[in-house]
C-alpha cells in the first residue's frame, strides 16, 4: 500500500499548483492515468495525419497543398512531443507503438471517419482542431510538468490549424451552390463527432473525478464541450451554414447554447473499434512502420559503424 503521508504531501503540492516532475514521487494511479492519457493523445496526433493526408495530392491549389502539408507536419511534431512526455513516466517509445498496434492503446475515435470531399479538410481544421484546441488550452494547466510544457508548445503551433480549416469553409460557403452544399455536408457529418471528442458526460465518465482532483484535467468533459459549442456555432452561422441539431438554441438565461442529446451508441461503437476506419487506420500505421524498418536498421548500422571508426582512430 502506498504511504498515506506521501499521498497527502502529493495532494498538497497539487493543491498549491506545484507541477509534478518525472523524478518526484507520485501515486501509481496518477502515473498510469498519465501514461494512458498522454500516449492516447500522442497516437491521436499521429493517426490524425491519415484522414488529412488523404487529400494532400488532390488539394485544389499549390497554396492549399503547402498549407495542408505544413499542418500535417505540425501534427507529426505534436505526436513526437507527446510520446517524449509520456516516456518520462518510464515507458519506452517501442512499447507505446506496440500497444497501439496490438489495439491495446486507443486514439481519438474522430480520426476513424473518412474524408470524402475537400470540404472535409475544412471541417477537420475548423471543428476537429477547434475542439482539440479547447481541450489543449485547458491542459496547459495540467499538473504533470512534461505534459504541460508539451501542451504550451502545441497550442502555439495549433493557432493556424483552425483558421486554415475555417478559411476553406468560408471559401466553399461563398462559392457555387454545389460548393456550398459540399461545405454543409461536411459540417453535417463532422459536427457530432467533434462534440463527442470531449468524451462521455461527466456523470458517466469513469476517470473524470480523480483526474480533476489530481489536476490532470482542469475542466470537465461537459464544461469543455460547452465552451467549444458556444464558440463555434456563431462561426458557422456567420457563413450561412446550419447545424445538424434541431435543439441547438441560444439560451439567454444560461448564457450558453442548448444542444440535443448525443448518440452515445455511435460513439462507443467507434471507440471500441467497430468504426469502418479503425481497421484501416491501424493497418496503415503498421504497414508504414514495417515498411520503414529498413530505414531504422540502416540508421543503426551507420551509427555503429561511425562509432567503431571513432574508437579505432
Amino acid at each position: 500500500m502506498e504511504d498515506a503521508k506521501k499521498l497527502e504531501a502529493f495532494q498538497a503540492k497539487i493543491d498549491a499548483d506545484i507541477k509534478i516532475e518525472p523524478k518526484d514521487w507520485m501515486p501509481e494511479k496518477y502515473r498510469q492515468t498519465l501514461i494512458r492519457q498522454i500516449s492516447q493523445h500522442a497516437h491521436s496526433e499521429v493517426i490524425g495525419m491519415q484522414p488529412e493526408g488523404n487529400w494532400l495530392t488532390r488539394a485544389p491549389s499549390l497554396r492549399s497543398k503547402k498549407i495542408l502539408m505544413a499542418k500535417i507536419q505540425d501534427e507529426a511534431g505534436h505526436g513526437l512531443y507527446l510520446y517524449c512526455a509520456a516516456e518520462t513516466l518510464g515507458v519506452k517509445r517501442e512499447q507505446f507503438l506496440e500497444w497501439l498496434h496490438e489495439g491495446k492503446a486507443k486514439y481519438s475515435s474522430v480520426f476513424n471517419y473518412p474524408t470524402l470531399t475537400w470540404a472535409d479538410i475544412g471541417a477537420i481544421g475548423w471543428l476537429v482542431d477547434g475542439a482539440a484546441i479547447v481541450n489543449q488550452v485547458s491542459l496547459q494547466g495540467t499538473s504533470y510538468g512534461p505534459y504541460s510544457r508539451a501542451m504550451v508548445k502545441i497550442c502555439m503551433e495549433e493557432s493556424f490549424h483552425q483558421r486554415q480549416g475555417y478559411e476553406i469553409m468560408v471559401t466553399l460557403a461563398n462559392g457555387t451552390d454545389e460548393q456550398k452544399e459540399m461545405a454543409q455536408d461536411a459540417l453535417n457529418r463532422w459536427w457530432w463527432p467533434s462534440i463527442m471528442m470531449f468524451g462521455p458526460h461527466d456523470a458517466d465518465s469513469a476517470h473524470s473525478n480523480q483526474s480533476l482532483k489530481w489536476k490532470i484535467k482542469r475542466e470537465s468533459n461537459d464544461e469543455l464541450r460547452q465552451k467549444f459549442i458556444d464558440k463555434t456555432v456563431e462561426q458557422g452561422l456567420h457563413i450561412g451554414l446550419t447545424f445538424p441539431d434541431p435543439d441547438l438554441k441560444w439560451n439567454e438565461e444560461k448564457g450558453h447554447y442548448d444542444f440535443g442529446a448525443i448518440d452515445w451508441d455511435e460513439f462507443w461503437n467507434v471507440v471500441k473499434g467497430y468504426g469502418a476506419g479503425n481497421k484501416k487506420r491501424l493497418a496503415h500505421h503498421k504497414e508504414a512502420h514495417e515498411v520503414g524498418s529498413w530505414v531504422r536498421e540502416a540508421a543503426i548500422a551507420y551509427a555503429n559503424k561511425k562509432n567503431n571508426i571513432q574508437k579505432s582512430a
Partner: protein
Amino acid sequence: MEKDNQGILWEVFIQVKAGRPFKHVGSLHAYDKEMAMQSARDLFTRRNEGNGIWIVKADDIISSQSVDDEAFFDPSNDKVYRHPTFYEVPDGVKHI
C-alpha cells in the same frame, strides 16, 4: 522480425537569439548526432524559434533527484549572507 528500435533519447536546448541562454525545449529520438541535429531543426525551429541548438544525450545528463529531496538544497538556506539584502548600508549611501 527484428526487435523494434526507436533510437537514442536526446534533450534539445534552443537559444532564441545571440546573447540569450540556451533553454530546454523538449526531447527527441535519433540514431546518431547528425540525425539528432536535423530532427531538432525540423521539430523545434520551424517558426524562427531560435538560431542556436544544443543537443545532449539524455543518459549523459547529471540531474539532482527531485524537489521532494529538499535536504540536497539545504546548504543554500543557511547562508543568507549570499544575498545583498543581508548587509546594512548607512543612510544616504548610493549606487551600491
